[in-house]
């Protein structure tokens, strides 16, 4: 056992170099910084946005519209009968709204009254998405207020809200056989916010673990240390286990860094949105809270996913001549990860054609990516079944790795050999 620790410490020292530690630290710093920037942007978006309103109509109706715009979370700079500003010059406004002459007259005649608007789009990122809908959102509020006012004038005893939306939908959601009286969109949004980053983290961690162990193998070959290591009085199984555990530890450190960093970004998106009491009650009613048992099953699926990736990478790493060849060798593992990763991000596996379902379920990592969604709908048996399959895959690949390590092939296998074989 002591010799195993000696090997493990050496492996960790080889893997935890400044070249690996600095990027991990940078990820945390960059993600946290990004989170702060996004958070500030979100706060700015929530504040009243500056718009220039040019009132060419100068009527009571146009004055009423300007007042309604001010209530639509806009800071209005009003100019009467002014020329359109030169957009080539800096203009500290998000939009320019023109109320043309005749606007009040058309409104009074019950005809559509036109506004002209110019949205000043200074970027095309997600953060700037709200800018594009600034004027249309404000105009929708103006329309709602004017419609309610007209309805009140025409039907003084009617409830404008009931007249504008005569049918009300009392929404319910059913999840895994349990129903709750709440908008499905609210629950889906909540669950999405909980699991959105999980596949990203799983992908990074599993791939990183695989790369680590393949690199450790390539290092031994490139530094010409493998032959010496194979001749010392320590079993090949111990060598394999030390390499795998070291890679697993480094991958876990990376996972923690990524989880922390991505959590900062996620918080910046959702920080201002607190879950209301109705949503919390519905979540409890639907049983959409993860229990300790669920977390243990999730941990098991992740652990087995990492172990399987390590075992596959160890086999692939046996073909490495040097560090450069690791990138090419790790490609099959990357493909095996990419397919269930993308599938879990963009689609529901159950809705795919049977042939794609079979392909996906043959890939052991599918069960890791699907574990959290399955646990939310209490499909624990599928998670357990998936874990058993992952365990079987791990045992298969680790036996193959052990066979390679205890044979001549660990010295004779090369990437070139593999290509020539094809």
């Amino acid at each position, binding site marked *: 056992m*002591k*010799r195993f620790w*000696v*090997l493990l*410490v*050496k492996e960790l*020292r*080889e893997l935890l*170099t400044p070249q690996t530690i600095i990027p991990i630290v940078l990820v945390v710093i960059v993600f946290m910084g990004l989170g702060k920037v996004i958070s500030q942007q979100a706060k700015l978006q929530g504040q009243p946005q500056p718009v220039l309103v040019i009132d060419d109509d100068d009527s009571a109706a146009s004055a009423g519209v300007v007042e309604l715009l001010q209530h639509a979370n806009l800071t209005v700079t009003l100019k009467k009968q002014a020329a359109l500003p030169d957009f080539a010059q800096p203009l500290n406004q998000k939009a320019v709204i023109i109320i043309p002459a005749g606007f009040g007259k058309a409104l009074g005649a019950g005809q559509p009254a036109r506004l002209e608007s110019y949205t000043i789009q200074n970027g095309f990122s997600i953060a700037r998405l709200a800018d594009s809908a600034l004027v249309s959102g404000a105009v929708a509020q103006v329309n709602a207020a004017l419609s309610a006012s007209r309805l009140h004038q025409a039907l003084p005893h009617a409830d404008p809200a009931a007249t504008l939306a005569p049918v009300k939908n009392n929404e319910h959601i059913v999840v895994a056989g349990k129903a709750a009286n709440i908008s499905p969109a609210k629950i889906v949004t909540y669950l999405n916010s909980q699991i959105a980053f999980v596949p990203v983290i799983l992908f990074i961690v599993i791939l990183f673990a695989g790369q680590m162990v393949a690199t450790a193998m390539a290092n031994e070959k490139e*530094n*010409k*240390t493998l*032959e*010496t290591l*194979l*001749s*010392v*009085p*320590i*079993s090949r199984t111990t060598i394999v286990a030390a390499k795998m555990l070291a890679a697993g530890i480094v991958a876990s450190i990376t996972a923690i860094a990524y989880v922390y960093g991505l959590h900062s970004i996620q918080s910046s998106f959702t920080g201002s949105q607190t879950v209301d009491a109705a949503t919390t009650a519905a979540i409890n009613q639907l049983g959409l809270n993860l229990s300790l048992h669920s977390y243990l099953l999730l941990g098991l699926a992740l652990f087995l996913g990492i172990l399987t990736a390590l075992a596959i990478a160890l086999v692939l790493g046996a073909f490495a001549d040097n560090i450069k060849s690791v990138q090419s060798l790790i490609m099959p593992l990357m493909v095996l990860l990419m397919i269930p990763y993308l599938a879990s991000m963009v689609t529901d596996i159950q809705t795919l054609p049977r042939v794609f379902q079979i392909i996906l379920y043959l890939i052991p990592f599918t069960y890791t990516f699907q574990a959290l969604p399955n646990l939310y709908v209490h499909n624990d048996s599928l998670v357990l079944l998936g874990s058993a399959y992952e365990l079987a895959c791990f045992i298969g690949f680790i036996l193959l790795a052990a066979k390679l390590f205890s*044979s*001549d092939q660990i*010295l*004779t296998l090369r990437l070139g050999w593999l290509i020539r074989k094809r």
Partner: protein
Amino acid sequence: MNVLTVDHLAKSYGVAQAVSNVSFTIGEGEIFALVGPNGAGKSTTLRMIATILRPTAGTIAVAGHDVQKEAAKVRELITYLPEESGAYKALSGREYLHFMAGLYTNDSTKRREYVQRAEEIANLGDKITAKVSTYSKGMTRKLLLARAMMTSPKLAILDEPTSGLDVLNSLDIRHIIHDLTKQGTAVLLSSHNMLEIEYLSDRIGLIVGGKIKETGRPQDIKARHDAKNLEEVFLKVASA
């Protein structure tokens, strides 16, 4: 008792026969050199004795232990220095020796003894605390040789121990090898360098095309072939 007994050893890679019917023995404190051109089967033979490659046929015994059946026991008794070998670059010379010593013993006192002995053999001075990545080829080779010798093995297998080194470093390494046999360690080495072989070896085996053509003491072999040096002998044997 022989420290090493190699009997009708053979190794093939598919249809290519790398080593064929090789037999020799080495006694305690003896230096035996395998001499031959590139691709003659020297390194393959050494790797099989070092438990890294599996023989296709024949047997190898180290101090009476079969290399295939008792590989773990054999690894306790031998050390192996491959022709192309390196040390872990992230470690200092001393850390490397500590790491390697830890793979041979769980006893911390013994571990310290091994490291101390290795530091004396390597004789790298203050550089022993520097990262291996800063070492010259000669320094690395001395460190690796010291690692191979620190446990006072029954059998040290040294593949081209002075390969690519300058004259001074080569001389140092030859002295180290010579001194260690005084403690009873048997040495099996391979080399292209006939002068080195003549200086170092008690007995040699001339290997060509995977087969041992001749074994014996250098002076006896020279006399048998009426040759001034081993290079002449080698040319005669190889062309025969």
